[in-house]
C-alpha cells in the first residue's frame, strides 16, 4: 500500500447534514477537506422523513420557548437547558436559511413553509399538539441532504469520497490530523489538519432490528473513545415506535402527526391508556414502551403476538399520496400491503443515539466530565452529545440539531484555525493504521473467527438484553457476553487479502467500534439505577432526581469501562413528573 500525505487547515469527517453544514460555514475561510466513507448523498440524513421543528408560527401561534419546554420535558429533564434554548431559538433562522438555499419545503396556500404535528411538540406547555414540524412531504431529510450538498457543489468544497477515516492524531493534547483508508485502492492517506470535526452519525447497528443504515457503526465516537476520550450518556438509546415488522425500516411519526393510530390485536387504540392527553403523539420513549408492554401482556397481533398495527386507513388516499408518499411506498414494497386499505404491522426499531462524543454548545469536544476542551476537535449531529436531547429526543429535533450545531462546529473550526499556526505531521502518522491493516491481511483466515459471526451474536444479544426494558440481570449477562465477544474479536480474521474495495477489511475494523459502543451502552445502563427517558430499568422503575440528574461519561479502561458523572445544567424548567 502507498502512503499519501495531504495538508489542510481543517478536515470534516462525514458528509451527512451536520458535516455538510459545517463545511458550508468553514470552507470560505480555510483549506478544507470533507472526507466520507460513502458518497455525500448516500449519508443517512437522507433517510429522515417527517420534518424539522421550528417555531415559525405559519399555521398557528407558536414561540421558541414552547419548543424549548417540549424538548426539555421530552428529554425527561436530562437535556442541558442553555443548549436547548440555543437549539430552539436558532431553529427559526436555520429553517429560513435552508429555504433560501433552495430546499423545496411543502407549502401552505399562503406560500409559506408548511408545518405539521409531531410527537411531544405542543403549544402553551402541553395544552395541545403543535403544528411545528417544517416538512417536504415525508422526505425532509432527503431534501436537507440534497440542498446542503448542492450548496457545497456551488461553493466548490473539496470532497474525498469513499475514504474512511480510521485514526486521529493527537500530540500533547492537541489535534494534528486524521488518517484515512482509500476504499478504491487500499492506500493510506494522512491528512494534516489542526481542526477536525467528527460528524459520523450514529451506531444503530449494535442492535438486530434497526432503522439505521449498514454504514452506521459509530466510527467517530469509536476513534475518539480508543484515544481516551469519554462518551456521554450512552445508556440513552432511542427505539422508534414504528419500524416495519421484522425489517425495522422507519415509518415516520408524521404518519401519526397526520392522524394515524396505533392499535393492538383487538383493534384498541391503546395509547389512550398510556398518554390520555396526546395519545399517539406521545414522545417516542413512551410509545415504544407502550408497544412493548402491549406485546408482553399478550395484546400483540399476529401468530406470535409480537407486533401492533399502525392504522392509516381513515386518512384518505389524497392525504397519503401528498403527505406520506415514501413511507406508503416502503409498505407496498416490503410488506406488499396497501396502507389505504389495511393497517401496517409495526414494532419498535433501534433508531437514534442520544449519547455520543461530549461537546459544549460550540461543538468543541470535551475530554472529561469537568469540561476540559480538547483543542482542535469538534463533533456535531448524532455522533455528538451536547446535550440537547437528554434521555429522549423529540421527533424532528435531530434534523434541527445537525444544522444548528453543524454550523456552530464550522464556526468553531474557523475561530481555531485563524488563531493557530500550521504545523507538520510526521510521516509515521500512518504507522498505527498500517499496523492494524497489515495484521488483518497477514493473519490466516479462520472461519470460526469471522466478522459476520461475531457481529451477528453482538446484535442478537444486545437486542435481547439491552433494548427497551433492562434489568441488572439482563445487563450483567450482556456484560459477560460482550467480554467473550471482545476476546474473540482479538483473533478475528478476514478472507479477502486484496487492496481494491476490500470492504471485508473495513467491516472488521468497524466491528471494533460496534463493540466499543455496546460496552459503553451496557456499562452506563448497568450503573444508572433509575428509569429516565429511553432508559427503562424494570428493577428501578422511578426517576430519581436526587441521585441521577446527571450525565454519564464512559471512559475506556483497558477492556472495561470506567464511569464519571457531570450535573445537568438546569434553566427555566424545574424537573416535574412527566405526564402527557
Amino acid at each position, binding site marked *: 500500500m502507498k502512503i499519501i500525505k495531504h495538508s489542510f487547515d481543517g478536515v470534516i469527517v462525514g458528509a451527512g447534514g451536520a458535516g455538510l453544514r459545517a463545511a458550508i460555514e468553514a470552507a470560505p475561510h480555510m483549506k478544507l477537506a470533507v472526507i466520507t466513507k460513502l458518497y455525500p448523498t448516500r449519508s443517512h440524513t437522507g433517510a429522515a422523513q417527517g420534518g424539522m421543528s421550528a417555531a415559525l408560527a405559519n399555521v398557528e401561534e407558536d414561540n421558541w420557548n414552547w419548543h424549548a419546554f417540549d424538548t426539555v420535558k421530552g428529554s425527561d429533564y436530562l437535556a442541558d437547558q442553555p443548549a436547548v434554548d440555543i437549539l430552539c431559538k436558532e431553529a427559526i433562522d436555520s429553517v429560513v436559511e435552508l429555504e433560501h438555499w433552495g430546499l423545496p419545503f411543502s*407549502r401552505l396556500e399562503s406560500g409559506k413553509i408548511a408545518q405539521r404535528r409531531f410527537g411531544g411538540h405542543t403549544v402553551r406547555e402541553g395544552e395541545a399538539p403543535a403544528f411545528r414540524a417544517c416538512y417536504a412531504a415525508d422526505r425532509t431529510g432527503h431534501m436537507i441532504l440534497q440542498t446542503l450538498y448542492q450548496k457545497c457543489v456551488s461553493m466548490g468544497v473539496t470532497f474525498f469520497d469513499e475514504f474512511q477515516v480510521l485514526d486521529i492524531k493527537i500530540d500533547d493534547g492537541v489535534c494534528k490530523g486524521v488518517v484515512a483508508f482509500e476504499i478504491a485502492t487500499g492506500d493510506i492517506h494522512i491528512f494534516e489538519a489542526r481542526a477536525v470535526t467528527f460528524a459520523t452519525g450514529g451506531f444503530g447497528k449494535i442492535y438486530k432490528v434497526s432503522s439505521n443504515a449498514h454504514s452506521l457503526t459509530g466510527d467517530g465516537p469509536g476513534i475518539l473513545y480508543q484515544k481516551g476520550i469519554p462518551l456521554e450518556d450512552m445508556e440513552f438509546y432511542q427505539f422508534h415506535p414504528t419500524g416495519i415488522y421484522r425489517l425495522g425500516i422507519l415509518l415516520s411519526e408524521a404518519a401519526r402527526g397526520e392522524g394515524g393510530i396505533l392499535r393492538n390485536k383487538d383493534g384498541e387504540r391503546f395509547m389512550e391508556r398510556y398518554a390520555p392527553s396526546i395519545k399517539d403523539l406521545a414522545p417516542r420513549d413512551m410509545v415504544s414502551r407502550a408497544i412493548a408492554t402491549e406485546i408482553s401482556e399478550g395484546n400483540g397481533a399476529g401468530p406470535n403476538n409480537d407486533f401492533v398495527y399502525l392504522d392509516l386507513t381513515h386518512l384518505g388516499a389524497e392525504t397519503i399520496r401528498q403527505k406520506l408518499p415514501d413511507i406508503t411506498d416502503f409498505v407496498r414494497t416490503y410488506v406488499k400491503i396497501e396502507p389505504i386499505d389495511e393497517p401496517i404491522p409495526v414494532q419498535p426499531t433501534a433508531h437514534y443515539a442520544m449519547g455520543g462524543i461530549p461537546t459544549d454548545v460550540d461543538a468543541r469536544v470535551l475530554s472529561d466530565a469537568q469540561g476540559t476542551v480538547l483543542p482542535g476537535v469538534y463533533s456535531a449531529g448524532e455522533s455528538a452529545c451536547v446535550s440537547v436531547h437528554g434521555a429522549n429526543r423529540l421527533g424532528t429535533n435531530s434534523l434541527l440539531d445537525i444544522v444548528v450545531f453543524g454550523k456552530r462546529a464550522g464556526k468553531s473550526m474557523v475561530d481555531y484555525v485563524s488563531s493557530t499556526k500550521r504545523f507538520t505531521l510526521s510521516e509515521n502518522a500512518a504507522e498505527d493504521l498500517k499496523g492494524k491493516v497489515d495484521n488483518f491481511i497477514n493473519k490466516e483466515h479462520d472461519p470460526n473467527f469471522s466478522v459476520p459471526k461475531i457481529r451477528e451474536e453482538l446484535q442478537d444479544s444486545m437486542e435481547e438484553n439491552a433494548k427497551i426494558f433492562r434489568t441488572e440481570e439482563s445487563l450483567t449477562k450482556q456484560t459477560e457476553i460482550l467480554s467473550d465477544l471482545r476476546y474473540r474479536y482479538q483473533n478475528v480474521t478476514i478472507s479477502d487479502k486484496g487492496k481494491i474495495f476490500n470492504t471485508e477489511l473495513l467491516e472488521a475494523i468497524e466491528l471494533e467500534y460496534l463493540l466499543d459502543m455496546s460496552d459503553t451502552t451496557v456499562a452506563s445502563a448497568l450503573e444508572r439505577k433509575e428509569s429516565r427517558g429511553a432508559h427503562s430499568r424494570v428493577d428501578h422503575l422511578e426517576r430519581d432526581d436526587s441521585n441521577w440528574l446527571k450525565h454519564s461519561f464512559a471512559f475506556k479502561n483497558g477492556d472495561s469501562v470506567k464511569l464519571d458523572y457531570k450535573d445537568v445544567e438546569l434553566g427555566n424548567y424545574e424537573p416535574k413528573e412527566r405526564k402527557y
Partner: protein
Amino acid sequence: MDVNLKILRFNPETDRKGHWEEYNLEADPDERILDLLHKVKWFDDGSLAFRRSCAHGVCGSDAMVVNGENMLACQVLVKEVSNPIKIEPIRGLPVVKDLVVDMETFFESYKKVMPFLVNDDEVGERERLQSPEDRDKFEDTTKCILCAACTTSCPVFWTADTYVGPAAIVNAHRFVFDSRDNASKQRLEVLKDVNGAFRCRTAFNCTTACPRGIQVTKAIEDVKRETLTIN
C-alpha cells in the same frame, strides 16, 4: 426456497476479464436481493464487492443489473424475480471490482448542469413564498437519489459517456422549473449542447429503471421543450 444466484465477478488484481460465479442459497421469498448478496459475502466469499448503505431504497448505493434490468438490490424481493437470479454491475461505467463501478463520470455530468439554486435577489428574514402549485411543478424531480440506474440504462449513454445522461437532466429539471431559480438560461445552454438533452432518443429505459418512480423521460421532454424558449 432454493435460489441459484449468478454474479458477474471481476477482481482487477487477479482477473483479466469478468466471469460468472454461481451460488446456491437457501432464502426466504420476502428477502431482498441485497440480503442474498450479504449472505454470499458474509458466509461464503468475503471478497465479493458491492456498495450498500440504507438497505431500503433511499441512499442510492446499490443500483445493479438484476436479470437484465437496472434496479436497487435493496428494493426488490426474491419472490419478485425469476430463478436463477443473474446479477451484474450497471453498464456504461468502468468496473472497479465485482458490482462496484467508477462513478466519477456520472457525478461530473451531474455537476455540469449547475445542480443548485441560483438566486442573488435580496432575501428578507423569512422564507421566500412559493405557491403549492409552483412547488408542484418540480415535485417529481426532487425525488432523485443519484443512484445512476437511469443513466446506466440509457442506450445512448452506453455508446457515448459524453452524453450528460438522464440523471443530470432530471437534476437540471428540478431547478429549471423552480419558480425561485434565476439561472435556467445558463442551465438550458448546457442542455442545448450536442451532449445535452437532444441526444435522448426517448427509449424510456430510464423511466422504467428509476427506483423512485420519477417520470424521467417526461422530465427530459419538458427540458427539451424549455430549451426552445431561450435564444
